[in-house]
Each structure stands twice: as C-alpha cells, then as structure tokens.
C-alpha cells in the first residue's frame, strides 16, 4: 500500500467532488460535510462514472404511502441506471446482503473484461493530512 496526495483540502470544499487517477485507476473523491470518501469510479453494474452521479438521501418506507427520508447527501446514484450506493460503505442499496454472497461467473473476452463479484462499489480509504487529501492504495 502506498499513500498518494490527490488534492489540497482547500480544493475540495464540503459538497464538492473530484475525479483523480491513482496508480492508473480513476477514483472519485467526495467531501460530504467535511468528511472525505473515495470510490473506485466505476459502477459495478455497467461501468458508469460514479463521479458524475447525484447525491441524494436515503428514501425508505415501512408501508406503501409512507416515506422516511434520512442521510441526505450520503447516497450516490449512478448517473446511468440510477443504482444507489451508500457513499460510506460502497454498498449497493437494493440488495446488499444477497448480492454480496452470490458469486458470478468471470470470463475474459478478447479485449474486454467483466464485472466480478458482488455489486459493491469499491471504496478507497481517504485521509486528510494537514492540508492535503490522501488516498491509500
């Protein structure tokens, strides 16, 4: 593992985001109310750029017609199919447990590659060191 400075804190105020490349991998960095989160910038569904997604809250309901809205700004929707990811854990909202435990066939195509494993957006640890945002990979 090595540490990479990706931005100055001043460049990433709360509510902002930045797409950086670390060791050749695109990483989306978010500042949510002063906390930093990093996600590998590819939706595990079809590869949409998560950095272009929208942040919203978590909408739940115990019953039809009731709406419980929480964690505003902490749920990232993929800009393509709108899959919801918890920005803290990278977990896909629609079926984290079941999908996590299921295995998928992995094949390599000529020139292509597949999404493997559960539908979890890969998180990347992000820290602040003095005035810099640091990614450990």
């Amino acid at each position: 593992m090595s540490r990479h400075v990706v931005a100055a804190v001043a460049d990433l105020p709360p509510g902002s985001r930045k797409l950086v490349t670390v060791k050749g991998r695109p990483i989306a960095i978010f500042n949510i109310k002063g906390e930093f989160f990093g996600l590998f910038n590819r939706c595990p569904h079809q590869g949409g750029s998560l950095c272009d997604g929208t942040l919203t809250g978590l909408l739940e309901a115990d019953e039809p017609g009731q709406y419980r809205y929480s964690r505003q700004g902490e749920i990232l929707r993929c800009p393509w199919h709108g899959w919801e990811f918890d920005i803290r854990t990278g977990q896909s909202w629609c079926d984290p447990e079941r999908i996590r435990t299921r295995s998928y066939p992995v094949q390599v195509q000529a020139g292509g590659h597949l999404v493997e494993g559960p539908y979890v957006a890969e998180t990347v640890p992000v820290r602040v060191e003095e005035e810099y945002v640091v990614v450990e990979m």
Partner: protein
Amino acid sequence: MNVDVLSRPAASRPAASRLAIADGDIHPARKKPSDIYPYLEKRWQTHLETFGLRFRHGFQYGPAYPKGQPLACRRDATPPGGGKPGCDLDFLRAQLLDAHNVQLGILNPLSPSGQGFQDTEFSIAFCRAVNDWQVAEWTSREPRLKASVVVPYEDGPAAAAEIDRRAGDKNFAQVLLLSRTAEPLGNRRYWPIYEAAVRAGLPVGVHAFGYGGSAISAGGWPSFYIEEMNGHAQCSQALLTSMVIEGVFERFPDLRLVLIESGFAWLPPLAWRLDKHFLRLRAETPHLRRLPSEYIRDQVWLTTQPVEEPTTRSQLLDSIEWIGWDRLIFATDYPHWDFDDPAHVLPLPIPEARRRAFFFDNAAALYGMAG
C-alpha cells in the same frame, strides 16, 4: 502532486468494444424549440408559439409520467456547451461514436417529433420538418449516422406520402413509428405505412412510447413510472400480436419490422402462446397461412436495449438461442439513463461469429449497409 487530477471523466473507454459496432437506437435532440424553425413553415411556428404542444395526455410540458432521471437521460451526457443531452453532434461523436467505435448509428428522434400530436395537420408538418432537420444537421455531417423517416402515423395516407418523399434518399435507414398508437399497429388504418415502407425498401422501426389515448395497461392507468417502463414490453407484445394476427406479415411478406427499446426476452413465450391459441382459434384467421412464430422468425428483429438481466446471467443465452442470434440488433439508447454499454451488455462467453452478428452484422444486413 504526483497524480493526474482530472475535472471530468475521459470520453474514451477501455478497448473492450474496439470491434466496430452498430447502434440501433440513438436519440438526437434540439437545443431549443426554435431550432426546428428553419425546417417548419411560419404558419406552424406561430401555431407552436400560440398553442404549444398537445398530446393525448394532460401536460403542456413533459411526459405523463415524470421520469427517474432528468429528461430520462444519463447525467454525464450533457454537452460541454450546454443544452439537452443528444443535441450536440461533436459531443455525441466523442462520447458515443468514437468511444464505442459505432460505425452505423440509427437516429430515432423522439418528442417532439410531430408523432402523436392531437392536431393531425400540425403532426404532418412537424414530422416533415424533423426529417429535414435530421438530414441537414446530422446525417449530412456524419456518415456513420442514418436517419429514420418520422411519420404522422395516425393518418395512414399522409404517413405514406412522407415515406414516398424520402424513398431512395440514402440518408434514411428506416421508417419510425411509436408503440402506443390509437389502435394496435396491425390495424388496417396503418397498412398504407407498411405498403409505402415496402415500396421504399425500408424496414419499419417501432419505438417504445407515444400516447395513443388508451390507458397504458389494459387494466387501467398505473401509478408509477417504473410500471410504465416495465410496461413497454407488454405494449410491444400487444402490437406484435396485432400485426401477426391482422395479417400484416401475410399481406406484406417483404416487410421488415424492428421493435426498439422493449427488450427481447419476452419474445419466445409470446411466440409459443400465439402459436398455440392461433391453432385453437384457427377458424377466425383464414387469411393467415403460416404459424405466428414463422412470420416472427422471418420478419421481426428487436433491438437489445434494455437488455434483460437474469440473476443467473447465462439464462439470457437461452432466450437469444430461442429468438435466433440473427434477429437482435445491439442498441445503446444513447443518451437515455437505461443505456446499455456495449462492453458490459453481454458478460458471457460467446463465439466470435455470434458476437459480430449481435453487435454489427445483423444491423448491417437489416439496414442494407452490408459491406
């Protein structure tokens, strides 16, 4: 800094789809309503400004069911110069054609296109304008793109006249209809369209949506957008049933039909159901001389998007086997949100010949572009 900091994602994709592909469903847009004016008579410009657009639903602006993403588009498809996704040819080139090596892209202009307007005369004029616009601003500037002849389908003879006008023009690859029409598309009022399409040697593409005036399910109006989206599969099943049973394929054996943006895995069960009950009720349809599944096998294609996603992905291969690897036309539906990325749409082991058919050869053959 020892990293590359990018402010927006690169348009280029990994080499996954370097194979040249065709895209059977691309949606060009105009930046603002008046962008159609160069192609529309003044009388209709004034009408548009005075009365706006009126479809068989209640809203002046937007669709009957609010979408799940703004304009039903990908959030990363807004051009750098602003405007609606799909309105900028240069950005479309970069983000779609170049990025995915699309060598043949079929344009399917959606609302407002003139189709489904309550006012028939306005519909006729607007469709003609949209066809002129496609050529002037898209296909004449980008040889990889082909246009669709947008027609005022609720007026069969007027629609046929528009097809006749465009016949022989290599800018156009197909005739475009929408799926939710006033009557099911097998109904005789639409036959002049099929006649003209065959005369012009053009396939007929039927794209999901439109407002024909009926509830969008046979049991009434659903509450939710997700039901509308899921329902496009049932609409396509119904219109295909109509076309088969009314005898459109029997009457027009050279007609080629492409069902666009309804998925495809529903087709084999529909064909089995049609065959079974057609035979039981045979006395009702003496005009049909083949099994429904035979007409479908010979004259119907489907674009792939939105591709169905079984939990056990390999089951999708059964569906494709049952339909036939030669009947599917890959499509992205760019720039809509339920876009299928060609690199990820078929994450399964498939022989190279089938992969080529799926991604290019079927479209090239259907649209007469085979090299």
